[in-house]
C-alpha cells in the first residue's frame, strides 16, 4: 500500500521552495470528492425518497417531541454510556437489538407464507415426509453399513418427493386432524426449542442445562398459544415469531451470560429500553392527541393489494411474490453455485485434458457474470416458457431465471471464500488419511462458510431487485391477491414499482412509488447489512 509521507518535516532546505504541496493536496481532495460523489448523491436521493414516503412534515411537532424524549434520548444516552465503558457492552447492546429485529423480519416472511401460501396440512405432510425420509436414510445406513453419498441423496429425494403428496393424501383421509395450533407448536416450537436445547447442552457441556433450556423455551411457547386471539396474537403468529425472534435472542443472551461469568451484562437490557420507549411514546401520543405523519409507507401499504386509488394502493401481493421467488432463487442457485465453486477450487486438475475443460468453464463463468439481465430474461422466456412449457409469469419461472442470473456471482464469490482457506489445513487433513470429500466437509466448508454466506446474501440482495428478467418472462404487472403456490402467477416488488411508473398522477409518482422504493431498498440494505455483519464478525476472529 502507499508508503509515502508528505507531512511537514521541519526546517529543511526546500521547505518553502520549488516543490509545491498544493497540487498534491488538490489532487487528493479531488479524488476524495470523486469517491464521495456517488455515495453522497445516492444517499441524498434515498433521504429524499424516504421523506416522500414518510412525509414527516405532516406530523404534529409534539409527536416528534414525545418520541424524541421517550425513545431517542434514553437509548442514545445508554448507547453513549456503553460506548464510553469500552468493554464491548455497546456491541452486546446492538446485537441484542439486532437479532430480534432480523428474527422478526424473517419470521414475518415465514408467517406470511403460512397465512397466504402454504396450507397447514400441506406443511404437516411435508414435515411428516421429512421425518420419514430421515428415518429411511438412517435405517438404510444401518442396513447397508457405509453407504455412498449419491445413494443417500437418491433415497432422500425419493422419500421426500414421493412421500410428500402421498402423505398429504393420506393425512387428508384422517377423520380427525390435529388442530392447527398444535401443528404449529409441534413443528416450529418443539423444533426450535429442541435445537436451542442441544446447542446449550453442547456449549456448556452439560446435558441438564440443555434440558432446562429446552423445557423453559417449550413451556413459554406453549403458554403463549393461550393468549387471547383477539389481541392479534393468534397461535401461528406467536409460535412462528417466537421461534424466529425469541429463541435466537435467548440463545445469544445465554452465550453472553456464560462468557461474562458473574458480572451482569447490562447491554442485554438495551432492547427493553428501546421497546419500552416505543410503547410509552405511543401511549403518550395517543393520550395527548398528537397526530403522527400521514405516511404513504404504513401498515395499510404493506398489507393491501394495488389499487387505482393511491390511498388504497399497497404492495402486499408483490411482497409475497418476492419472498416466494427468493425461495426458488435460493434453492436453485445456492447448492449448485457452491458445488461448482468446490469443484473448481478443490477438484479441478491443473494439467491434463480435463484442465482445458476447467479453464474453459472458468472463463465462461466470468463472462456469464457480465451477460445483461435482460438477456437472461429472454433465456427464461425461451427455455422455461416456450420450450419446457411452463406457464408464463409464474413464480418458479421467475425464480429459476433470476437464479441462473446470480449463479455466476455466487460461484465466483464462493470460489474466493474457498480459496482463502489456508492450504496447510487441507494438508493436515490429507495427512491424517482423510479423503478429499472428508477434507472438504469437515475442514474446508466450515472455514469458508461465512465467506460463502456473505457473497451469497449479497447476490440474493441483487436478485430481489432484478426487474428486467421479470418483464421478459411475463410476471404480472399487478396482482390483486398473493400467489398461492410456486406455480401461480405472481408479481414482485420491483415489477410492481415499474407498473406504478406508468401512473402519471403526483400521488403515485411521489407517494405510492416512493413507499414502494423505500420498502424495496430497505429489504435490500438489510440483506447487505446482514452480509457485512457476518463478514466483519468472522474477519475479526481469524
Amino acid at each position, binding site marked *: 500500500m502507499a508508503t509515502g509521507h508528505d507531512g511537514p518535516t521541519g526546517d529543511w532546505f526546500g521547505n518553502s521552495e520549488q516543490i509545491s504541496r498544493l497540487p498534491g493536496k488538490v489532487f487528493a481532495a479531488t479524488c476524495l470528492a470523486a469517491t464521495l460523489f456517488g455515495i453522497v448523491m445516492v444517499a441524498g436521493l434515498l433521504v429524499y425518497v424516504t421523506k416522500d414516503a414518510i412525509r414527516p412534515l405532516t406530523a404534529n411537532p409534539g409527536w416528534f417531541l414525545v418520541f424524541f424524549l421517550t425513545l431517542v434520548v434514553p437509548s442514545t444516552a445508554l448507547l453513549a454510556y456503553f460506548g464510553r465503558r469500552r468493554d464491548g457492552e455497546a456491541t452486546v447492546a446492538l446485537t441484542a437489538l439486532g437479532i430480534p429485529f432480523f428474527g422478526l423480519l424473517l419470521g414475518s416472511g415465514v408467517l406470511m407464507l403460512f397465512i397466504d401460501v402454504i396450507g397447514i396440512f400441506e406443511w404437516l405432510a411435508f414435515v411428516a415426509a421429512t421425518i420419514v425420509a430421515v428415518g429411511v436414510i438412517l435405517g438404510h445406513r444401518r442396513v447397508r453399513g457405509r453407504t455412498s453419498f449419491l445413494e443417500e441423496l437418491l433415497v432422500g429425494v425419493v422419500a421426500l418427493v414421493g412421500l410428500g403428496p402421498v402423505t398429504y393424501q393420506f393425512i387428508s383421509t384422517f377423520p380427525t386432524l390435529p388442530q392447527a395450533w398444535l401443528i404449529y407448536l409441534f413443528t416450529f416450537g418443539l423444533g426450535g426449542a429442541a435445537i436451542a436445547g442441544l446447542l446449550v447442552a453442547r456449549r456448556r457441556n452439560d446435558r441438564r442445562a440443555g434440558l432446562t433450556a429446552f423445557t423453559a423455551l417449550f413451556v413459554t411457547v406453549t403458554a403463549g398459544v393461550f393468549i387471547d386471539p383477539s389481541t392479534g396474537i393468534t397461535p401461528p403468529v406467536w409460535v412462528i415469531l417466537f421461534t424466529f425472534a425469541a429463541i435466537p435472542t435467548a440463545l445469544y443472551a445465554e452465550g453472553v451470560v456464560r462468557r461474562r461469568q458473574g458480572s451482569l451484562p447490562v447491554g442485554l437490557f438495551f432492547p427493553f429500553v428501546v421497546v419500552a420507549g416505543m410503547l410509552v411514546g405511543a401511549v403518550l401520543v395517543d393520550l395527548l392527541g398528537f397526530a403522527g405523519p400521514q405516511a404513504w409507507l404504513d401498515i395499510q401499504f404493506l398489507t393491501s393489494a394495488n389499487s387505482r386509488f393511491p390511498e388504497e394502493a399497497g404492495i402486499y401481493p408483490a411482497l409475497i411474490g418476492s419472498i416466494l421467488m427468493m425461495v426458488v432463487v435460493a434453492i436453485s442457485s445456492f447448492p449448485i453455485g457452491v458445488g461448482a465453486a468446490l469443484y473448481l477450487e478443490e477438484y479441478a*486438475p*491443473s*494439467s491434463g485434458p480435463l484442465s482445458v475443460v476447467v479453464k474453459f468453464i472458468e472463463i465462461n463463468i466470468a463472462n456469464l457474470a457480465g451477460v445483461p439481465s435482460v438477456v437472461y430474461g429472454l433465456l427464461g422466456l425461451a427455455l422455461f416458457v416456450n420450450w419446457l412449457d411452463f406457464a408464463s409469469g409464474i413464480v418458479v419461472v421467475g425464480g429459476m431465471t433470476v437464479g441462473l442470473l446470480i449463479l455466476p456471482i455466487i460461484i465466483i464469490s464462493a470460489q474466493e471464500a474457498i480459496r482463502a482457506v489456508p492450504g496447510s*489445513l487441507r494438508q493436515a487433513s*490429507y*495427512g*491424517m*488419511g*482423510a479423503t478429499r470429500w472428508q477434507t472438504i466437509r469437515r475442514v474446508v466448508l466450515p472455514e469458508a462458510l461465512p465467506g460463502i454466506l456473505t457473497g451469497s446474501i449479497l447476490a440474493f440482495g441483487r436478485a430481489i431487485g432484478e426487474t428486467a428478467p421479470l418483464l421478459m418472462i411475463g410476471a404480472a404487472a399487478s396482482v390483486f391477491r398473493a400467489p398461492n403456490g410456486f406455480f401461480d402467477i405472481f408479481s414482485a416488488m420491483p415489477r410492481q414499482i415499474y407498473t406504478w411508473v406508468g401512473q402519471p398522477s403526483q400521488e403515485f409518482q411521489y407517494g405510492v412509488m416512493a413507499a414502494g422504493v423505500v420498502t424495496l431498498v430497505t429489504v435490500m440494505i438489510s440483506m447487505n447489512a446482514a452480509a457485512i455483519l457476518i463478514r466483519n464478525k468472522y474477519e475479526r476472529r481469524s
Partner: protein
Amino acid sequence: MSNENMTTPDPNTESGSRVESQTSPRPGSEVVDSDELNRPKTSETVVSSRDLDVFYGDTQALQGIDIEIPKKQVTAMIGPSGCGKSTFLRCINRMNDLIDSCRIEGELKFEAKNVYDSDVDPVALRRRIGMVFQSPNPFPKTIYENVAYGLKIQGKTENMDQKVEDALKSAALWDEVKDRLDESGLDLSGGQQQRLCIARAIAVDPEVILMDEPASALDPVATSQVEDLISDLAEEYTVVIVTHNMQQAARISDKTAVFLTGGELVEFDDTQKVFENPESQRVEDYITGKFG
C-alpha cells in the same frame, strides 16, 4: 548454497540411468547393504526405497534414492534447502499425489508392499503413516475435536474420550489442556499447537510418523519439549524427521540420512558414524560447515 564445489562426479548420479531396467519390481531380491553389520540395534525395516526418482514437471527432485528405514527408531534426514529431503518424506505417505506435476519412478516399500503399486489406496496408506508439518497447523476447532479428527474420519468413534486423552498424554500435552478441551486449538501457544498436531497424528495409532521440520517455527524452549517428545515416541513408533538443524539430528536420531543438492542421498548410516566419521568427503564438508 554454492554449487561450484560439487563438480566431482558421484557414483550415485549414475542411478538415474538405471531407471529403465527397474520398471518391474523384483520380488525377493535382497538389498545388500554394507552397513548391515554396524547397526547397534538389529531391527526390521519398515520403509525402504530402491532407485526412487521424483520429478516436478521437467525438473528432477530426487535421484535414485536407496534407503532402509528401521522400525521404532528415529531416522533424521538432513541436507541443505532444496535437496529433496521433504520431497522424499512426502513420497512415503504419497502426499505428493496432491501435486499434479509430480511424477515418481522406482520403488518405495512400506511393509514389503510398493506404495506406488496401482492397487494401493493412498488414503488408507496415510491412515497408517501419520504426518506432522513444518509450522503448526491445528484445525480451527476445539482441542478435543482436533485430536478426535482422525478417529472420526476413520469411523473409530467408540471409546473416543479415552483415545483423545491417551493421545494428548503421549504428546505430553494433557496436563496443560485437560481443563480446556473445548477451547480452540488456535488459542494454544506455538509449541503447544505443534504438540497438539503430534497428538492428532498419534491418536489414530499409525505405524510411522513423518515429521517435516517440526520445530523450525518454534522457540528454543518449545523446540526442546518437542525434541524430548520425539525421543519418547520412538519407543512405540517409527519416526522419520526432516530437519535443517544438524545439532537437532545429532541429538535425537538413531540413523541419519544426508541429502545434498541435486536430490541425491549421499550417506545413510548410524547418526554417530555420520557425524563423527562420514565416508564421503562432501558429507564431511557439509557437516563441518564448509558449505551448505
